């Protein structure tokens, strides 16, 4: 018992060292991640990665730029503005939940210490709706994409800035879980997300070029010609998992929220340019 204060001090020092070492790990992860793409695409300037696959696919880029002259997501942005302005049944609006809105996309995802979970924009929108007595919106398809399009449009030019707070080890754990998800092989095809979007980014899969993981989160929600509408990031996650023949997870479930946390952190510093248009 004599040495108890000494032991406690030692334990605290060891804990601090362990947390700091882990905290430094995500910075190292990001460095390795960025260096990989720098090595693969030495002629592409970093900021260009915000344009997704069109940073590395010159032919696709021509079509994309033509599409952007009359953007297919425009009507969704207009409908989203109407949603943002329209009062709920109780007379309040989204603005009451998000006083800094509508240009708030750069604030998500973030670690919500109070709820002990990664908070994404779609989840925050639905929590707002529920707190105002409204029904939550579906997370993959439908009108959630209108309001997300409007918010993304109003957030253009903001910079991705995901923070992993060091004062809550649960945040780091969420980041690590998202990272593990990204590098885990799954499904009948035995693919990880990284197999396509890190290892083989820039390669062709049938007629399409695989996009780089760097910059993948900057332009959501996205109008995909394949969908014929705008869809959420978690809808895209679902599609990717399905293509590898793995059973997809629930949109806005813990797995995909942590994945979004990791993946968006990897794009820190890139400018938001959503909503986007893709094939």
């Amino acid at each position, binding site marked *: 018992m004599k040495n108890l204060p000494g032991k406690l001090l030692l334990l605290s020092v060891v804990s601090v060292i362990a947390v700091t070492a882990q905290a430094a790990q995500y910075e190292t992860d990001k460095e390795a991640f960025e*260096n990989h793409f720098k090595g693969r695409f030495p002629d592409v300037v970093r900021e260009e990665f915000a344009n997704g696959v069109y940073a590395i696919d010159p032919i696709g880029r021509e079509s994309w730029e033509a599409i952007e002259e009359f953007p297919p997501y425009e009507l969704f942005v207009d409908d989203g503005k109407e949603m943002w302005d329209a009062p709920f049944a109780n007379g309040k609006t989204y603005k009451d939940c998000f006083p800094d809105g509508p240009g708030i996309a750069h604030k998500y995802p973030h670690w919500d210490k109070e709820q002990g979970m990664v908070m994404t924009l779609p989840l925050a929108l639905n929590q707002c709706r529920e707190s105002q007595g409204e029904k939550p919106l579906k997370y993959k398809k439908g009108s959630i994409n209108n309001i997300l399009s409007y918010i993304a449009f109003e957030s253009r030019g903001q910079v991705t800035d995901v923070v992993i707070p060091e004062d809550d080890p649960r945040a780091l754990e969420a980041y690590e879980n998202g990272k593990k998800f990204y590098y885990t092989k799954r*499904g009948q095809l035995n693919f990880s997300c990284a197999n396509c979007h*890190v290892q083989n980014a820039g390669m062709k899969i049938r007629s399409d070029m695989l996009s780089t993981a760097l910059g993948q989160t900057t332009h959501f929600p996205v109008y995909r010609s394949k969908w014929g509408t705008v869809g959420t990031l978690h809808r895209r996650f679902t599609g990717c998992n399905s293509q590898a023949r793995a059973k997809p997870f629930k949109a806005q479930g813990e797995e995909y929220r942590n994945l979004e946390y990791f993946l968006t952190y990897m794009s820190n510093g890139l400018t938001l340019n959503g909503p986007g248009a893709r094939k």
Partner: protein
Amino acid sequence: MNMKKLTAMLCLGAIVAIAGQSVIAAEKKAAPKAETANKVAAEPAAKSSENSGDKAAAESAIAAAESARKKAASIDGEWRDTGKMIKKAQAALKAGDSAKAIKLAKKAENQAKLGYEQAQAQQELKMPSYLKY
């Protein structure tokens, strides 16, 4: 004995012999018919017992597949089509096609086992060598 009587006796004997042969042949022919009839009568019972055996085997195969699927899902290792295969197996069983149900259930069970093994092997995060730290 004159020739007429002898010929008449020979003809009668031949007729008797032919008739006898016919009776034996007819009896021989009749016997398999009776056996077949007995067999036919026994077949529905056998088939019904075989069907119920198939049905039980299909039910057991579906249960094994579902249990393997749940095991894989418990460690996030379920594949996309496993659950669908089990549903198809259940539909085939309902439609009375036990053989198809067993085939689908076994395929699903195999997928589930592979998914479980895959997820087990991926429990520990190993950073890929193409990323240079």
